[in-house]
Structure formats: structure tokens, C-alpha cells
């Protein structure tokens, strides 16, 4: 006798309220970061803490861009400012990501279709992720110094690639698993070689998977603090390292610019992350979630 069910019942509004409250709590640290990025220096550590700055400023952002002086006083040589660190970091991360994706996809295809390495190899690849980076970093330093790779671009790129390989392989494997083999077999029957079948049939079908994985690995690379710290001797930095060195003897930690840098470094990640939400979950659980 009633009309169409209303779109939202009362219970739904209660949910909404609860979620709003929780969101406020959860987003509070982010709010604080953004606030700090906009605060002038005297407000950073003021007591009582400044909840909402009445004199917001963009100085922190500006100083990031031309940070030569403060940086120089701390670093030995090749002083940098934030944009230089960004560029270097971008170059290294991109190269490492591409390398990781390419080799990872190839391996994933092999594991998925040919079950290469049986049960051992895939788990072995995954286990690479279990080592605390430090544990591998120490011998790595020894290795690198022996072959003189310590300060090089390629040394960093190789290291970054290696550390994201397990994810690359496993995530792509789960995406490739979803493509039915029959499609490739059909391609082979039409005269394609194995590799062509792979390139022309499989790859286009896992394009989203590739994008998701690429993004994920790029995020991982972008945050690998330790590797850069150990291997680069302050010359070849990336953003995270740069953040840590934003230390000026006069002002203690430069929280404002640090926060500003955090805000900047995070925006592209957030944007892309939103776009691939669902696939992230699948990739993260290595396909345990059926679609």
C-alpha cells in the first residue's frame, strides 16, 4: 500500500552522522598538516597551539622552492633545493617503476601461464619483501662500494626496482590470471608466436592492472627513505630524504616548510589513488578478492 521505498531511511542518516564524526577525527592530522604549512614560523610551536591561523602565509611553500641557503649550511656539497630533489626523485622513481613493471609483468606472465618455478619461485619472490630493508642495505653497501655504484643513478634505480619487484610480480599475476588462456591460444592458432600472443592479446586486456600496479609501485618507490639514505651520501637525494634534512641550526626543524613539502608531495598521489580505488584492493590482496 505504500509508495516506492524512500531512498534513504532513518538508519541511513544515523550512519551518515557517525561517519561524519569519524571522518573528522581521522582527517584531523591532515588538517593539522595543511594548517602548519600555512602558518608563519612563530606559530609552529606556539602554546597554546594555534588551531586556525589568523595570519596564513604561503612563505613555507615559497621557501621550498629557493631553499639554497638553509640547505647549503647542512649539506656538504651539491646543495639542492626542493625542486631539484623532486626532479631527481622523479627520474629515479620513474625509471625504477618502469623497470619493475616490465620485468614484473614478464615474470608474472610466466608464472601465471607456465607455472614456472612451481610453488617455490613465486613465494621466494614474495619473501624478498619480508626482509627489513636495512638487512639488505648493509651488504648492499658493501657490494656497491666494491663495484663503485654507491653514488650513481643506476645503483639507486636497480635497488628501487628490486624492492618493488615482489609487488610487481604478484599484482600483475593476479591480473593476468583473470584473462582466460583461451584468448592467447586463439592468437597462437592464428599464427602469432608466444611473445606476440602475449604482447597483442594479453597486454591490452590487463591495461588497467598495469596502471594500478604502476601507480602503486611508484608510490612505494617514492617513499623509500632508507635506501636513499644509505646509498646516496647526500648527493643524490629524493624528496623524503630532503625532508629529513630540512634542518637548520638556527630554527631547529623547519616544520613549516616540511609540512608544505608534505602537502605538495602528496597531492598527485591522492589524485591518482582515488581513481583506482577498487583495483588497489584487489592488487593488495593478490587477487584473493573475487571481483
Amino acid at each position, binding site marked *: 500500500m505504500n509508495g516506492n521505498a524512500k531512498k*534513504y531511511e532513518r*538508519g*541511513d*542518516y544515523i*550512519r*551518515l552522522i*557517525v*561517519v561524519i564524526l*569519524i*571522518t573528522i577525527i*581521522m*582527517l584531523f*592530522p*591532515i588538517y*593539522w*598538516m595543511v594548517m*602548519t604549512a600555512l602558518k608563519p614560523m612563530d606559530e609552529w610551536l*606556539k602554546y*597554546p*597551539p594555534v588551531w586556525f591561523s589568523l595570519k596564513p602565509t604561503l612563505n613555507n611553500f615559497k621557501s621550498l622552492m629557493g631553499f639554497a641557503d638553509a640547505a647549503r649550511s647542512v649539506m656538504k656539497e651539491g646543495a639542492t633545493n626542493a625542486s631539484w630533489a623532486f626532479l631527481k626523485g622523479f627520474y629515479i622513481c620513474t625509471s625504477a617503476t618502469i623497470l619493475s613493471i616490465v*620485468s614484473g609483468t*614478464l*615474470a608474472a*606472465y*610466466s608464472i601465471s601461464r*607456465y607455472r*614456472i618455478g612451481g610453488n617455490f619461485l613465486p613465494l621466494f*619472490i614474495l619473501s*624478498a619483501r*619480508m*626482509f*627489513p630493508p*636495512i*638487512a*639488505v642495505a*648493509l*651488504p*648492499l*653497501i*658493501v*657490494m656497491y662500494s666494491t663495484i663503485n655504484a654507491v653514488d650513481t643513478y643506476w645503483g639507486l634505480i*636497480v635497488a628501487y626496482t628490486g624492492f618493488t619487484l615482489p609487488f610487481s*610480480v604478484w599484482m600483475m599475476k593476479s591480473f593476468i590470471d583473470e584473462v582466460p588462456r583461451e584468448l592467447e591460444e586463439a592468437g597462437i592458432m592464428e599464427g602469432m608466436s608466444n611473445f606476440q600472443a602475449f604482447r597483442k592479446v594479453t597486454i591490452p586486456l590487463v591495461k588497467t592492472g598495469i596502471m594500478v600496479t604502476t601507480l602503486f609501485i611508484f608510490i612505494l618507490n*617514492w617513499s623509500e*627513505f*632508507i635506501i636513499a639514505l*644509505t646509498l646516496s651520501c647526500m648527493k643524490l637525494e629524493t624528496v623524503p630524504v630532503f*625532508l*629529513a634534512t630540512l634542518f637548520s641550526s638556527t630554527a631547529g626543524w623547519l*616544520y613549516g616548510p616540511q*609540512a608544505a613539502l*608534505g602537502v605538495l608531495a*602528496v597531492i598527485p*598521489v591522492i589524485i591518482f589513488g582515488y581513481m583506482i580505488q*577498487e583495483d588497489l*584492493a584487489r592488487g*593488495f*590482496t593478490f587477487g*584473493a*578478492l573475487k571481483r
Partner: protein
Amino acid sequence: MNSAEVLTSKLVKADTERSLLRKLIDKIPFAVWLIVPVECFLLFLLIVPSSISIWLSFVDWQPTYGIPIYKATFVGFENFIDLFADKRFTMALLRTFLITGVAVSAELLIGLGLAVLCDKEFPMRKFFVLCLLMPMMLIPLVVGNNFFLLFQTTGPINDIIGIIIGHDFRFNWLSSPDYAMLPILLAEIWHWYPLMFLIMLSGLRALPPNQLRAAEVLGSGRLQTFFRIKIPQLVPVILIAIVIRCMEVFKMFDEVFILTKGGPGNVTETISVWMYKTGLKDFRFSYVSAGAWIILIVCVIIFTLLLKPLLYKVEKFEEGGSAS
């Protein structure tokens, strides 16, 4: 005529050579070619360093000694024995396990709770879900800095507490031997609960709706359906999420380092921080390598004892569960 013969024989030779190479290429299956790049990386970045690490564990060597590594003196199990007696090391190891347990459990509960909350459609649900996912998108370093600021003596946390309890509250969280762990834990949980949330939510949304409707028609209330059907069907996903998170939390470094540097003293040292300090500040490479191997063995033991039976159960469940 002669040059033609020479040419022909040259061509034939080249052809045979090429076909040899081709035979070689063909002999190795396509599959193996595919994993060559990954194998190279693994070799270079895993096998070789691991071998070096093993060597290091059994010798006494530091980069400050000035001698090449293969000339170091062999000391047998001395490093390992010292480590067992080293309070700092064992405490760090225990502490790391404890943190892992607490953090992952908290992330799981929060993630599950939020997922259940967001499982039904409500106004602007998509927007709020995206908001709740934000912490995961930040770099660990940034998270660390954030919480550093939040938990300052003059920071907002103290301010809030002060408002609640009525008078000024100026507590130095990060220098407190008893409570310094809290900001670290909170930072980690805050950073990664969205992953659990996302996984649980996706899992809930992927549940076959007809089964849930069938349950409803058969008389099952919301709570009953949740515990009898939803959770059991989410178990494999939950388990994998737990395993993955445990692996990552165990290695926690950035947040600890920024917030307390392991301090005050060594009270908040996780195993990663210990390795960093001992290895890169004190330069005791051999000691740390031995430590790394102990950690690995302990983890493998725990994995085999605790998780293997669980994962085995998941496999059996999957057999019964999938219709394929």
C-alpha cells in the same frame, strides 16, 4: 667463380652459426626467457647480498677496520651468542612483535568496523569513503612529521586532553619512556587502517547478494547473517590482509625514527631502527648481519607454527567454497 664459392661457403657458415644460436634460443622455453630479468634482479639484490650477509655473520668486520671484507677474521658463532645475550637486541625484537600484533589487530578492527558502517548506501557515501582512505596515500615520512607535531608538548593533542580534563596538560609524549610508544603506534595505525578498510569494504561488496537475500528470507536477522555468512566468506581475504600487514609493520622504521629516533634511550627501538643504529651509526656490520639472520629464523618459525595451519585452513575453505 672462386669468389662465388667463397661467398657461398661463408653464407653457409653464417647460416649454421645462426641456426646454432637459434637452436639455443629455441631450446630454452619461452617461459624461462620471461623470468630472466626478474631472476637477474633477484640474483643481484637478494642472493648476492644474502651470501655476503652470511659471510659477514660469521666474521668480525666493520667498514672502519679498513681491510677488504674477504680478509676478515673468522669468529664462528660469536656474533650470534653475543646477540642472544644482548638485552637491547632481544627487547627490540620482542617489542617489534608486540607492536606488530597490536597495530595489525587495531587496523583490522577499525577497518572492519568502518567497512560495515559503509556497506550500506547513505548520502554522500562515496565522498566519505574517499576521505577515510586518505591517510594511506601519504608517505611514511610525512605521517611521521605530522604526528611529531601533533604530540608535541605544545601540540593540539595535549590541548584537547587539557580541555577534557579541565586543566593544563603539558606532557612530553615523545620523551616519555613509558608512553613514547603510543604516538608511534597511533601513527602506524592511522596511516594504514584505510588499507584494511578498503579490503574489507571491497570484500563485503563482493559478497554474492542472492545468498544474503536467501538468508534474509530464511529468517536470519542482520547480525546473524553477518556472523554466519559474511564473516566466514571474508576469512580468506582477512587472513591475507593480516599476513601482508604483519610483514610490513614488522619492518617499521620511518615513523619510529622521526618521532623518537628509538628513544628515549632505546626504549622505542624497533628491530629496523636497531639495525640502522647499530649498523650505520656504530658500523657493526657483522653484528647486524648476524642479527638479521636470527630475525629471519625467528620469523620463519613463527610463520610455520602460527600461520601455516591457518593458511591451510583457508585452502580447504576455498576448495569447499568456490564453485569452479
